[in-house]
């Protein structure tokens, strides 16, 4: 949240709509997330905040039990043991720590290039953000997406973990193939490397399934969740793994070996539980595919589009055109992100039909104008 791109300050928000201090509004297709101010969820969080938002960490937090129980019900395969912390960033780091606990002598991490793994030290390092972090003891070994041969030669007996987004979201929007992930699964198992799926950007229904992991039949050793898990209310993240791995590392250890002061705090657990209940009962995952299709259709073939659930990348002629489009959209009350010549559209999961319709109208109108302008 530190990148300041507008002088207006945020005053309130509802659904996908931001309201600024100068009275102006904008529909936010840049931040993703769950969606702001969902009435029932806010009411549930508020009730917990009034009772006890943070724990003094002496007694038992009942809502933490409800949350980890719900996670175990919703995630695929044998994933069943959760660690709850304050952000998806911390969860990814926690997953690497779990892997290191299992194999303390290994230091190589095979990373599927183009994965967007958050902004903590290892997340930045492995996302090829350009920040120099080579003082860190773990070393990334990058592999191109869906190149099973390269993957096979990268994973060795020295591989600590293999990390990936099930659908790459950073540079290109690209689902990892069943074949690639099956190879990864087989090799991880045979070498003892920990397979870690980063679902902060792709989970919670975003890619048309509850978790993008479910787009194939391959289940990782650890799934990292966060982002929209906060229900638009309270920051929260977590990872979920299988019991054997958790027991191997933490099963005979003081529970204080890993943890965080505010990790799993009651208010954040209520927010996450509410987000998961909505995911379970409100058809969020199915709707994302429709939302994405509507966004693609608003472009009307004027530019190439890639879609995964409600994530849409629109390829324009060049970076200058993408920037101009972003600027024009912003002036028309629609916030989008750009990367090079691409527009990246990431609506909140709970964007309303009317907000979506309005966003599509604006996109449709401006994409025509910008193309016309280029042609002239």
């Amino acid at each position, binding site marked *: 949240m530190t990148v300041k791109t507008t002088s207006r300050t945020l005053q309130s928000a509802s659904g996908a709509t931001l309201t600024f201090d100068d009275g102006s509004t904008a529909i936010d297709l840049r931040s993703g997330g769950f969606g702001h101010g969902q009435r029932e969820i806010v009411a549930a969080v508020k009730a917990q905040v009034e009772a006890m938002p943070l724990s003094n960490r002496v007694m038992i937090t009942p809502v933490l039990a409800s949350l980890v129980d719900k996670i175990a019900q919703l995630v695929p395969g044998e994933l069943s043991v*959760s660690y709850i912390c304050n952000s998806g960033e911390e969860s990814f*780091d926690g997953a690497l720590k779990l892997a290191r606990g299992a194999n303390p002598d290994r230091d190589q991490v095979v990373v599927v290039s183009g994965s967007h793994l958050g902004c903590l030290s290892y997340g930045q390092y492995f996302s090829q953000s350009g920040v120099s972090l080579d003082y860190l003891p773990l070393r990334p070994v990058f592999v191109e997406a869906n190149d099973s041969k390269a993957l096979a030669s990268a994973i060795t007996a020295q591989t600590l973990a293999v990390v990936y987004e099930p659908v790459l979201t950073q540079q290109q929007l690209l689902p990892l193939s069943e074949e690639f992930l099956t190879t990864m699964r087989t090799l991880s198992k045979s070498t003892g490397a920990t397979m870690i799926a980063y679902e902060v950007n792709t989970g919670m229904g975003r890619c048309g399934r509850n978790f993008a992991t479910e787009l194939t039949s391959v289940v990782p050793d650890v799934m990292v969740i966060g982002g929209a898990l906060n229900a638009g209310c309270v920051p929260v993240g977590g990872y979920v793994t299988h019991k054997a791995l958790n027991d191997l590392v933490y099963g005979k250890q003081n529970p204080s070996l890993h943890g965080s*002061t505010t990790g799993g705090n009651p208010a954040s657990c209520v927010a996450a539980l509410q987000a998961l209940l909505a995911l379970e009962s409100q058809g969020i995952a199915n709707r994302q595919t429709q939302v994405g299709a509507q966004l693609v259709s608003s472009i009307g073939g004027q530019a190439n589009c890639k879609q995964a659930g409600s994530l849409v990348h629109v390829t324009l002629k060049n970076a200058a055109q993408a920037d101009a489009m972003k600027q024009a959209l912003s002036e028309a009350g629609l916030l989008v992100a750009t990367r090079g010549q691409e527009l990246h559209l990431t609506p909140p999961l709970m964007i309303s039909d009317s907000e979506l319709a309005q966003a599509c109208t604006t996109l449709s109108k401006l994409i025509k104008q910008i193309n016309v302008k280029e042609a002239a």
Partner: protein
Amino acid sequence: MDLQQTVETLDQHWNPTAASLYRVSRRTMEQTAHNTVIRDHLGNEFLDFACSYGVFIVGHTQPEIQAAVTAQLEQVSIGAVGVEDQQTQRLSQRLAEMLPGDLNRSYYCNSGAEASELSMRAVITAHPSSDRIVVARNSYHGKTLGALNILGQRGHRLPFGKLADNVVYVDFGNIAQMREAIAGGAAAVFIEPILGGPYLQVPQLGYLKQVESLCREYGTYLVADEIQTAFGRCGKMFGIDYDQVEPDIVILSKGLTGGHAAIAVAVFSERLDRRLRNDIQVDEAFFATAGGHPYSSSAALAALDFIEQKQLVARAQKQGEYLLSEMRRVAAKYPELVLDVPGVGLMTGLKCASPAVETAITMMMGRHNIHLGHSMNEKATHPVLRFYPPLTVSHDEITRCITALEGVLATLGKRPKLFLKLMNALIKRQFTMPRKWLYKITGVKAA
């Protein structure tokens, strides 16, 4: 879910050894909390001298903070990418006004460990020639795998293999060792103004000033980790106030939550920030964090108002003197149980003769419905059992705690030495022995 189902669920789907501890110590479920008191699902009330190791500077669910936070929940809670929100903006201004010198560039995170990681990459990048970091043995700067590289508490590092080799450890309070480490060329010193955790240690006045001088002399950055000390906990607004030190980065968290929200911030000096942005020209991604949300910032602002209006810093000093002097008076009678009573402000503790003593006092005080900050560190030889009440704690509540402590130590003092010896053996093996045995020894019926 009832209590048994809840513990069973936490055992299966969260943390098995935590669940064991819950069973062995007969923990109940927290339900509500207000000011210094926590109420469980059976209606029992507990005086909170644990405070999640210092989080609840303002106590629990104070109405003024509740009003701000619940109103914020109705407005907007989570920030939007590329947009500043009013609460976070105001908080940055406020922190800049409170901190000395040109400490005025705030970078928000969701936990102290995240802020430590950000600070580490900042000082290593900014320093022209060294990537070495100097930290105190037994210090605490967070437990993420990234922050683990500079964690002074060895026991928490060891199970995770070889970590960064650019870290030098020195004894806290030993200026000769610090001089040697800095003179060897170092990018930064990470230091808690008062060593916290189970190793609570108040340094000699002037120690931090000397560290600052060494840093200035050798061009080493000084990072003050004020997560445990700040906002009055140590009897001053910040731990650095004792020696009037101006670090290059100050890391803040616990008290800033207002007891309501996960939040941490690394406040950089303008000089350091300019070096990174203008001289080195780091990319904007360098500063990226997942923090800075209206919900947590509104809690922090309301907490700062509360601390100021209720004059909690002065209060911590006054009540702290009473608490500490009483703890010392009581503990002096039992030198075989309590070796020392370190502390300043309301950051106080009993340096226990063994983990068994720490656990026994904690459990027996629990029977008096008083929660203490147990170190959860059975490997520490002489763990400090922390007494970190909210800064709103009353004279009577301190008296109640001391009276209970007097009784507990008297009872414990009469126990045969063998009792504590056996208990120590049990504590050291409680996580490794078969659970069936642990439950049998401690009388837990069955899980």
